[in-house]
């Protein structure tokens, strides 16, 4: 693309906020009541962080791997690609992250977290699983347009960041979730919707927390 510096984020936004959230409404409508199962599975992830053992890390990583694979296929490829030409690329990135999480689940190298780090991770996991669906109401959207862990990308990614923080996961597992949070935040900001700052803020806070706890451990 020539004169790329003359393009702004808005030049790449090819759909309206209405089309974006109608996508969630139709997606949710088609899959109801699978949301109940998804939230229950999300609660299991929170439980895994609370218990914090090697076995629970494996369980959380496997649940997340399945969630990322599902979002890659059912959301990005089957639905988001209809209104965003980048949809197939997002699907590929989510599928790759699913694979990385699978490998992490099979070959855990993670260490159980310190108490303070565990609490931060628990807070973010709760935000992703329990609070994210409520954002629809807080931003005057309908219930049908709620974003649910395991089905919608943003809460799935924020929950993943929480798990990665809890177990001080290898850096390569962080790349796609952080990149998605930035891309999603930019999209939501351009759409002018409420809580657009949440995904990038979550990524920045969790990464900063990870670095902080790491330095703290090294110092002690």
């Amino acid at each position, binding site marked *: 693309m020539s*004169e790329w510096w003359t393009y702004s984020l*808005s030049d790449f936004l090819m759909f309206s906020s209405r089309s974006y959230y*109608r996508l969630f409404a*139709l997606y949710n409508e088609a899959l109801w009541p699978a949301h109940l199962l998804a939230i229950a599975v999300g609660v299991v992830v929170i439980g895994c962080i609370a218990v914090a053992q090697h076995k629970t890390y494996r369980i959380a990583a496997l649940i997340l791997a399945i969630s990322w694979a599902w979002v890659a296929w059912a959301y990005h490829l089957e639905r988001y690609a209809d*209104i*965003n*030409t980048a949809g197939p690329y997002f699907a590929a990135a989510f599928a790759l992250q699913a694979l990385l999480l699978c490998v992490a689940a099979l070959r855990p190298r993670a260490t159980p977290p310190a108490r303070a780090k565990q609490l931060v991770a628990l807070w973010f996991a709760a935000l992703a699983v329990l609070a994210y669906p409520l954002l629809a109401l807080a931003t005057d959207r309908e219930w049908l347009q709620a974003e649910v862990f395991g089905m919608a990308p943003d809460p799935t990614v924020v929950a993943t960041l929480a798990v990665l923080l809890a177990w001080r996961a290898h850096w390569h597992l962080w790349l796609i979730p952080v990149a998605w949070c930035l891309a999603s935040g930019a999209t939501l900001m351009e759409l002018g919707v409420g809580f657009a700052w949440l995904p990038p803020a979550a990524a920045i806070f969790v990464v900063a927390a990870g670095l902080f706890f790491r330095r703290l451990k090294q110092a002690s």
Partner: protein
Amino acid sequence: MPPDPLSRRRLLQAMLAVSGGMVLPAHPAPAPLLSRPILSSGEHIPVIGLGSWITFNVGRDPQARAECQAVMRQFFAGGGRLIDSSPMYGSAQDVIGEALQAIKPVRLFSADKVWISGGARGVQQIEASRRLWRVPRFDLLQVHNLLSWEEHLKTLLAMKKEGRLRYVGITTSEGRRHDEIEKIMASQPIDVVQVSYNALDREVEQRILPLARERRIGVIVNRPFRQGDLTQALAGKPLPGWGAEIGCTTWAQALLKFIVSHPAVTCAIPATSSVAHVRENLLAGTGRMPDEALRKRIAQDVERLA
């Protein structure tokens, strides 16, 4: 020249509109929409067209698709002809195609684009676009944002020569690559150029619009409202007295009249997902147009208020 308000034709139209309104309240009689010739052929097209960027990219949502269809139905009922889209616009082409299949408009002017690297891939993309539109052939194909323009222009000009396409064009937006646009306009046998132009973004007035007149190239104007930013900035601000002089009741109409009253402009292509806005936009293509002095005043007032 402004039409005589008491002419027999207008009186008859008013009577028809009233009597028609009694029977068909949903679709008022089409207003006499002004048209301009495509200079290379002399074929007239209405000065208000319909864009599809963002507004028609609604995916598979049946409700939103029905709304787009209602917009198109109103557009054709109001005398509109030219609909513009691109393979870059997500599901817009398919949404248009589905609506065309349902509406079966008598006088469609289909304008699409080719937007891909490489000439051979362009041929495939054009065919894929045609299938999505569900039309036997396009009226106008434009090279979108000058991407691989040398290769695509060759393809499009060959298609025109073979009778598989009626008009060839190029596009840009938001003032990008105007130097290159000018060179192509001066050297290639194109029929249409598509550029951004509105009461605030007037760079094309300097060279591109005069060159279009000189080279007898039609001009399609995109982003007449700066993708809604302009109408939003003017919302709530009263239309100055000149609005009534040219039959405008809204800023959107005044902004469109400013554009289509430029003698080099063939048509503007505002995009909307609202039936009410289509009606409003089409009205801007009727009645009295601002003269040069008033055009300057409109631009000054918009600069001051937006």
